[in-house]
């Protein structure tokens, strides 16, 4: 779902981020593209999926991954 430009303007204002229109447009383009790419990976039926987010260790991979 593409988020409208006004949503970005409103969020920037709510979060008190000092962004101008050029910033907001660039951010909206990036965020919408990334969310669209994520959509291809979102599970259609979440039931029965294997749990993710393994307990973190200090060995090798970032704790988030």
């Amino acid at each position, binding site marked *: 779902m593409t988020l409208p430009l006004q949503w970005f303007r409103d969020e920037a204002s709510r979060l008190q981020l000092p962004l101008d229109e050029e*910033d907001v447009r660039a951010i909206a383009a990036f965020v919408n593209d990334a969310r669209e790419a994520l959509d291809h990976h979102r599970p259609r039926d979440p039931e029965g999926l294997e749990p993710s987010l393994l307990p973190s260790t200090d060995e090798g991979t970032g704790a988030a991954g």
Partner: protein
Amino acid sequence: LTELSRLVAARTVSPVEIVDALLARIGALNGSLASYVTVCEDTARTKAATAERDLRAGRRRGPLDGLPIAHKDIVWTKGVRTTAHSRALADFVPTDSATFVDRLERQGMILLGKTNTGEFACGTTDLFGTPTNPWSATRYTGGSSNGSANAVAAGLAIAATGTDTGGSVRVPASFCGVVGLKPTYGRVSRKGVITLSWSMDHVGTLTRTVSDAALLLEHMAGYDPLDRTSSRRPVPSYAVHLVDPVKGRVIGIPRKHFYESLHPEVDRALRTALNHLEELGAHLEEIALEGSGDLEFVGPLLYRVEAFAQHARRLRERGQDYGRRARQKIAAGAFFSAADYLQATQIRETWNRNLEGVLRRVDAIVTPTLPFPAFPIETQSAGPPDTSWGTRHFNLSGHPAITVPCGFSSDGLPIGMQIVGNLFDEKGVLAIAHAFQQMTDWHQRRPPVGEKVGA
């Protein structure tokens, strides 16, 4: 480093002579190359003189004693301005050094200066000038450790450190024709490194040779109680393992994604390099790395969210002190939901699991570092190609990766080969890279800058 260390030990060359020669090159060339943001001329000369006196008196702390190093200007250096190339930190002078900086200083290394970087490792270089590519001033240098890369390539530093969140050591190293090492996540402490992405930032090295990278890593690595992500695993002697045989090692070649749509001269250079690895006795095996093409947005999304979490307060208060590109990238992290971040994390985990599965069957993976040689600077300004195309995968997973020069394009631009190993198998990665350098001379070529200034 390795060679100079021997010469210093033999008293053939002195630390003062080395520092003087480098400062002369910096004085003559930094104006055009923009390698350094800050040059520590006086303290470097003083420390070199002290090192020389100690050496004459028979006191030597180790192989790095009296040798100069440059640190990326995103790394805290006690008493020396650390700007991250941002107006927001233009006057910041840390009261402590990063843990790995301390470790190198305890070995007697001399801080030569702070090298240029993209703002907060993700923005532009508008404030202190843009590092130019010593092989062609019209070509992009890569980022964000671009000052470290061009300084080492052009002989304004013997060795330098950098940070790598999506390829920021390996990409400029490849474009500038030097060796860039990103060790395993947790191998080098990040205490005192200005954070971009806590789960993907790595500290690495930029050097002319693989043996120099091994020597530096050995003295930078190790557990740090001040960085809870640092590993307690013992640090092996990487220099000793450099000559471990390549014969019999299985090297995975992931054709999909990593060998698709290559610039023809990159393709040719990699084919020749793979032949060399076979001549060294390695067995090449085609492998499938599932999901390698799905990560284009995963790394950039994760680091933006993590960077915003880090910068939120200052960005609100001093947003206009950030350059436009850094401000846009970091602020973008505020517009993703927790579900977006977790969804990206799940894709990351799937990738990590696939990669770990493959690396149980092979000893290393070899890819091009980039699919093209350095492109014209105006291309970067207009809308850059994806320079993390072959590198971000191993920031997401944390695996060690090195780039070594493996050829040149017909117009004289360096081409890099990336070698990736199992977690904490830096010694395996370094051994393959070292053997490759021993049978090639790509790393011995010098860019056409400052030939009259001296070495």
